[in-house]
């Protein structure tokens, strides 16, 4: 069955540094990959989508890459801030008619 793994359960970095989160998947060939942010006690919030034919997507301080050969996506937050502290989830789907499946998430903490 398909499996989505996100690197370490938790990541702690210094404010101002770049945070890099990893999403790996197996037994699946998604056409689309998304990243969501989830704060404690809240539902996830959509951040970015990247398609299989796109290598990289940027939005403000966020950058996402998608390598379908490695079956991996990297999510970068540059110039990180304490307000970026949250859990980040990657999600995959094949088409507009298919279900969206999520990884287990990485809890990111940015220390001042």
């Amino acid at each position, binding site marked *: 069955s398909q499996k*989505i793994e*996100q690197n370490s*359960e938790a990541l702690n970095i210094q404010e101002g540094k770049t945070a890099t989160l990893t999403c790996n998947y197996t037994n699946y060939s998604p056409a*689309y990959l*998304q990243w*969501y942010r989830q704060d404690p*006690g*809240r*539902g*996830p*919030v*959509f951040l970015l*989508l990247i398609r299989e034919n796109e290598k990289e997507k940027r939005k403000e301080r966020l950058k996402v890459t998608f390598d379908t050969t490695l079956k991996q996506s990297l999510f970068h937050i540059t110039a990180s801030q304490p307000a970026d502290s949250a859990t980040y*989830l990657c*999600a995959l*789907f094949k088409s*507009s*008619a298919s*279900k*969206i*499946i*999520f*990884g*287990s*998430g990485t809890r990111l903490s940015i220390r001042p």
Partner: protein
Amino acid sequence: GAGVSQSPSNKVTEKGKDVELRCDPISGHTALYWYRQSLGQGLEFLIYFQGNSAPDKSGLPSDRFSAERTGGSVSTLTIQRTQQEDSAVYLCASSSPEGRVTGELFFGEGSRLTVL
């Protein structure tokens, strides 16, 4: 309403009781999802409704779980004969037909279920 609404926000029940969780999606959204999130875990897919198509029920963990969506809008997730392992936050999400281009899901705040 402006967002996805879920009720109740918290539910404590005794083992063996049935529970119903309600989701009111954003008006006009044709797709509706139910996910389950256990403490510190990711989102476990349960069921997916898309318009008038037959729902994808492949994530329902047992026949104690069922869901329906009436009139293409409000959805109810029912758990019969609850067990302690059913304790989790149940999240509902919806997306618009245009949202299917990006797949952007709009989530509710979840229903926290505790089975004693």
